Each structure stands twice: as structure tokens, then as C-alpha cells.
């Protein structure tokens, strides 16, 4: 239930982020026991490179606390959509915070908004939509893969978000977003292999007073076809972009400063104190606080295509 609002202490059933390092975080469920493959109920022990954690021990602990592991320690953090996208079980390729942030901003999602999303996928974006629109809005999220829809529905429930979301198992390209959703949406988001097929359904789902549209697609041809349909249906403010986040690697670097001046003077002129003293002198080092890019950066996530459905476009 730890996704609903900020809370201070871990309660049983919370999802908790066990933070070991920037590159090692795990989402664990704060339950004292689990059922193993043989069907036996056993104590919930979580293994980490720094030793094991008896999960029961963290229940009641304050979020942000340090917890001891058998060979080290970790911190327990309250989950939120950012930490969740970094730890969630991947059922599909997911969208990350930089793109998601732009999607929320461009779709103008705020408390009270009604958002239609397809597909649900691993639910990373859904969690963001839910944070942004609760407690007064609603998310309608669709996936054509039945198991994924079921998993997502279950997850939202365990996260305390069930009141604000409806999960549908449905092929929206062919069947649309159900007629109940005609004209209810402030915003529609598509992450589909053929977004152009779903644009007419998005058009129907948006309010008569207008709304915002977004499609995320890895390939430029998907955006091209999508824009083609958007234009025909009377969308405007059509805009495509990509957002790539770069992380800076910060470290202190030292550089030897070499002396070349002494070469101008003949050695013989300083018979004693020359060479040996030079080589024995400690190397002069200059220190710099530096930042640089990591060796590998994300070069592409997807193209974001945004559009506005203006008010009062007749929906035939």
C-alpha cells in the first residue's frame, strides 16, 4: 500500500525499496513469510551481495533507515514511480523517467484528469499517471496480452491504487477503447506497434472540449503514419521529439605536471643536485573535480509525438 501517499513507517504488505547502491536496488514486499515452490510457508529472507535480510525485521522501521545485512547494510526507501521503474519486474520494454516526465507534462495530467493508456505493459508509466491524477482522476489502461493485464491489475491493488485505475484486456487497435469511454478522456497515450490504427479510437475517447494526445514509438515510420492520421482527423499542435537524459560521472582526477624547464640548463652546470634530485622529487600532481559522460549513453528510447485535439471538432 506504499504507493498511495507519503508515509513514514514500513507497514506489513508495503513494497519497500532496498537500496544497496546506485546500481543495486530491489523492490521487496514487507511480509514476514512467503510460500516456496513446494507450497511450504517459510520465513521471507531476501538475499543480497552484502548478505541476507530477514524481511520481518524491517516491518515497523522508519523509511530512510539503515538496516543491517549479514555482511553489510542497506537503506529502506519508500517506493515511488521513479524507484519503481528501476526495480519493477520487466514484462515488456518500459519507458523511463525522462520520457515519462515529458509525457505527463505534455498531456497536462494533474489531479482530476481522466487518462486512457494503451498498452499497460509493465505498468511503469501507469504508476506515474496514477501519482499525477489521484485522488480525483482516473486511469483507463489497456493491454492485449491477458496475463500482463491481470498482473498489472493485481499490482495496482497491492500498491493501494486500485480505486484510481481500471485495467482492460483488449485489442484496442481492432476493437477501440469501449464505447463507455467515448468522450471521457482528457488525454490519451499510445505505446503500440501500429499507433496509427488506434488514433481514430483515441479521437473518439477524447472529450468534445478537446484534449491532448501522445504516441511513443521506437521507429520513425510509426510516428510518420501516426501523424498522417492525426492530421486527417483534425488534431493540431502536432510535434515530435526525443528526450535523452545524460548522467554526469563526477570524480576527482589527478594529473602529473611535468617539468621541462630544467632541460634548458646543461646538466654539467649543476653537477651534484641535478638528476637524482629530479627523479626523487615527488611528482607534482594537480587535482580537479571533474565530470564526464559515462562511456555508453542511451542513444535512443523512442520518438514522442504529441498533438492537441481542439475543442468542438465534430466526431461524425
Amino acid at each position, binding site marked *: 500500500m506504499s504507493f*498511495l*501517499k*507519503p508515509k*513514514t513507517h514500513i507497514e506489513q504488505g508495503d513494497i519497500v525499496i532496498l*537500496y544497496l547502491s*546506485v546500481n543495486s*536496488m530491489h523492490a521487496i514486499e514487507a511480509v514476514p513469510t512467503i510460500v516456496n515452490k513446494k507450497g511450504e510457508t517459510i520465513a521471507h529472507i531476501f538475499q543480497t551481495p552484502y548478505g541476507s535480510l530477514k524481511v520481518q525485521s524491517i516491518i515497523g522501521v*522508519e*523509511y*530512510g*533507515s*539503515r538496516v543491517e545485512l549479514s555482511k553489510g547494510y542497506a*537503506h*529502506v*526507501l*519508500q517506493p*515511488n*514511480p*521513479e524507484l519503481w521503474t528501476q526495480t519493477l519486474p520487466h514484462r515488456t520494454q518500459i519507458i523511463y*523517467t*525522462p520520457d515519462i*516526465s*515529458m509525457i*505527463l*507534462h*505534455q498531456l*497536462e495530467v*494533474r*489531479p*482530476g484528469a481522466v487518462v486512457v493508456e494503451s498498452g499497460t505493459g509493465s505498468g511503469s508509466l501507469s504508476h*506515474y499517471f496514477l*501519482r*499525477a491524477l489521484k*485522488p*480525483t482522476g482516473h486511469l483507463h489502461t489497456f493491454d492485449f496480452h491477458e496475463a500482463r493485464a491481470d498482473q498489472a491489475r493485481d499490482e495496482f491493488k497491492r500498491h493501494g491504487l486500485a480505486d484510481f485505475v481500471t485495467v482492460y484486456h483488449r485489442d484496442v487497435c481492432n476493437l477501440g477503447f469501449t464505447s463507455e469511454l467515448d468522450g471521457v478522456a482528457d488525454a490519451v497515450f499510445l505505446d503500440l506497434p501500429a499507433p496509427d490504427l488506434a488514433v481514430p479510437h483515441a479521437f473518439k475517447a477524447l472529450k468534445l*472540449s*478537446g484534449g491532448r494526445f501522445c504516441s511513443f514509438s521506437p521507429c*520513425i515510420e510509426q*510516428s*510518420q503514419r501516426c*501523424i498522417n492520421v492525426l492530421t486527417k482527423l483534425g488534431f493540431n499542435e502536432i*510535434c*515530435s*521529439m*526525443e*528526450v*535523452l*537524459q*545524460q*548522467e*554526469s560521472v*563526477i570524480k*576527482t582526477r589527478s594529473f602529473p605536471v611535468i617539468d621541462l624547464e630544467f632541460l634548458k640548463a646543461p646538466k654539467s652546470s649543476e653537477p651534484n643536485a641535478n638528476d637524482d634530485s629530479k627523479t626523487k622529487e615527488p611528482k607534482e600532481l594537480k587535482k580537479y*573535480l571533474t*565530470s564526464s559522460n559515462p562511456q555508453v549513453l542511451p542513444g535512443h528510447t523512442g*520518438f514522442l*509525438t504529441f498533438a492537441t485535439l*481542439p*475543442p*468542438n471538432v465534430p466526431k461524425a
Partner: protein
Amino acid sequence: MAIIQLGDYIVIQRQKYTKLQKFGSLDATATLGKEHLELKSLLDQPYGSTFKMCVKESKAGKRGAQRQHSLELCTENELRSIRDVLNISSSGADNRDISDNGEAQSLKSSDIEQMREECNESSKIIEKLVENSKTFHNRTEYSQDKYLLKKEKKYFEFVQIRQPTIRLMADIFHRQDPDKIMGIRVDTLSQIISYSGISGFGNYLLYESGTNGLLPAAMLNSMGAGTEATLVHMHPGNVPQKQALLALKLPFEQQQRCISVNLYSVLREFYQGDKPEATKSSGDEEKVEAVTETEVTAEEQSEGFEPSSKKVKLESPNSNKAHQRWQVENKRAAALMNEKFDSLVMAAKEHPSSILQALLPLVKPSRPVVIFGTCKELLQEIYMDLKTTGKVTNLHLTSNWMRTYQILPNRTHPEVNMSGNSGYLLTGYTLK
């Protein structure tokens, strides 16, 4: 659809150009380049409406004629593609035979100026220009389109009136003068909202030294109407910049949940407020003027130093008498500071270290901290400091690369120019 009312901020859009404007009175005019628009006919029309600019008079100005227009509400049918109207058919295969010697247009500029005064419709003006162009029909279709777009932009006679949103204002502010919003680009703004976790639940702390109100407005927008979230908005000046906040026209209860306070004043209240102390309510506190909700421009916010008390004492000799609005706000803020916050956002023009040192203890554990800055070197230093003290974990210093694309049949490519600076975000989570 909401209705345009007196006192509203409105967004005026002419093709891709947008502008934020206060519709303060019935004789208000808006200026778009050389065009001056009388706004009075907007009253009580729905937002989203399109108006036609009708020339009323034209005065010679330094850089060509300045025109005064009235606005007439128009129908969707009036808005149609210039290309359809002109019905251009013949186009050359490429531009090999075109030499650009500046003599392609046989109309003189005085002719064009006169035509413009006589004729309201850009399509007619452009039609004339095309008729009198010696090279237009030899150009490629692409080149013809480019020419028409350029001319359309110049003579386009329609404006749309839209209701301000964070999205529209972030674009306007960044395009007009990124310095006035500390260079916070749209991608960065969107990430500040994400990383800080602003939502309908929780109490949030913001320090900013001047973004035209964009940052508190974006946060308040994400907190929503009718929710329990509260924002303490600290600023270094006498009065906070609130333009974007006012433009959103939020419900009163929501506005009330933005507590804007002077950094120095509220810290003194927080550190010393509950102590029985003789000099407390006299002396230095009055220097902060009451927060007014009238329009505040960027210039009114001072430079990040506590204003000297002497001057203000002269200005407000009666300040001892009653609790002023700013005192009430300080007390509300201090109460929340004692409870601690669910997130901290900083966007300082000053060196952020001492401010962070003062505000970080006010944040609960396991809560996000987001520090925006235009100078990477400063944030590197803070990164190292925080890493050393271990008070904040999961530290990341990031910036963004954002490119927009032109997607048109056979002419798809990233836009030729892009914004070079997204600013930098230092993010992390507090520990117990």
C-alpha cells in the same frame, strides 16, 4: 469551455507564436510585433475561440507601419489552408534555373504596404505576391511551400485565445527569455515535477530565486484542486514572483495552499519564533512587505539578500499594530517546517550550499531532493559534499538532450536548431 473574463491572463496565439497577456481592462491592447490588438471583444467568449484581426488604422513607425486592429470572432470555416485557396499547380522539378537576384518580385514594397492596409485577408495578399513573382512557378513544390509559409507567417490575420496552462507558459517563457525562468527548459521542468514526487498528497518545500512563478505554479498544478497537499514557497525577495501562478487562475482553496515566504524571515521565525523574545515582533521582521496578489514582474524581486531593515522601517511605521499577512504566512510555514516536508526543490541563483544546509534538515527521511542549477560546477561540488556526509543517497547529476523533429512526407529530419541548455538536476533521497 471556460469563458474569457476581465482580469484573466490569456494566451494569444498567432500561428506558432504565443504570448501571455493580462486582459486587465476593456481598453487593454496586446502587441504582436507591429500589430496592436484591441482585446475588448474577447470578453465572455469561450477560450479556444479564434478571432480575425481587422485593421483599424495604420501609423508610420520607425521600422515600418504600426497597425491597430480590432478583433472579430470568426468561424472554423474561415480558417483554411492558404494552399487550397491559391490552388497552385505548376511547379518545377528543382531549382537549377533560379538565380536569386532580388528582382523576382515585381511589386514594390510600397505597393505591398498599401495592399495590406486595404485588405484584411492574408490569402489575397499572398495571391497577389505569387501573381507578381517571376520565379514562383519555376520553383519546386518544396520551395513554393517554403515561400508560402514565409508569406503566410507575415500576413496571417487570425489569432486564437487560449487559457494559460503550465505547458503553454513554459513554452512562452522559455522562448521569450529563458533567463527570467533561470533557463528551466520544458524537459527539465517536467523532470523536476517527477523527481520531487509532487502530487495530491504531502507537504512540499520549494526555494527559488525567480522563475516568474513558473516553478511554484507547476508544483501547485501537480498538487491539484481539492487535495490536501501544501507547498511552502521560499524566495529571497520582498515579494514572490507569481505571474504564472496567477495566470493559472486556480481555485482559492488551492491558491491558499501555496505559502510564499521570504527565506530569511521565515527561517528567523522558525529558529526563534516560539521563544519568548522582546524584540521579536518589532525590528527586522517588518521589512518584508505583505504578499500581494497583483501582478509581479521579475524586476520587483530583489537580488537574493535580506533587505536592510532601515528603509522599510521608514516605509511601514505602523507595522507593529497587527499581524500582517506575511506574519501569518511565516507562522503557517514554520508550523509545516516543524512537521518536516515530503520533498525539497531548489532553484537558486545564489550559491546553493548554505541554502541547502538550512533546508535539508527540514525534509523527512526517504524523501526526494531535487536541486536545479545552471552551473554544473556548483552542483558537482554539492554532489561531492552530499556524498561525503551521507545524508542523501542515490545521487544523480543529469542534464538532457532534447530534439524536436520535422515529420513531413519525404522531408523528415530533426529540427536544424536545438536548445543547447537544459540546465542540470542533482537528485537524491534523504536518509534517516
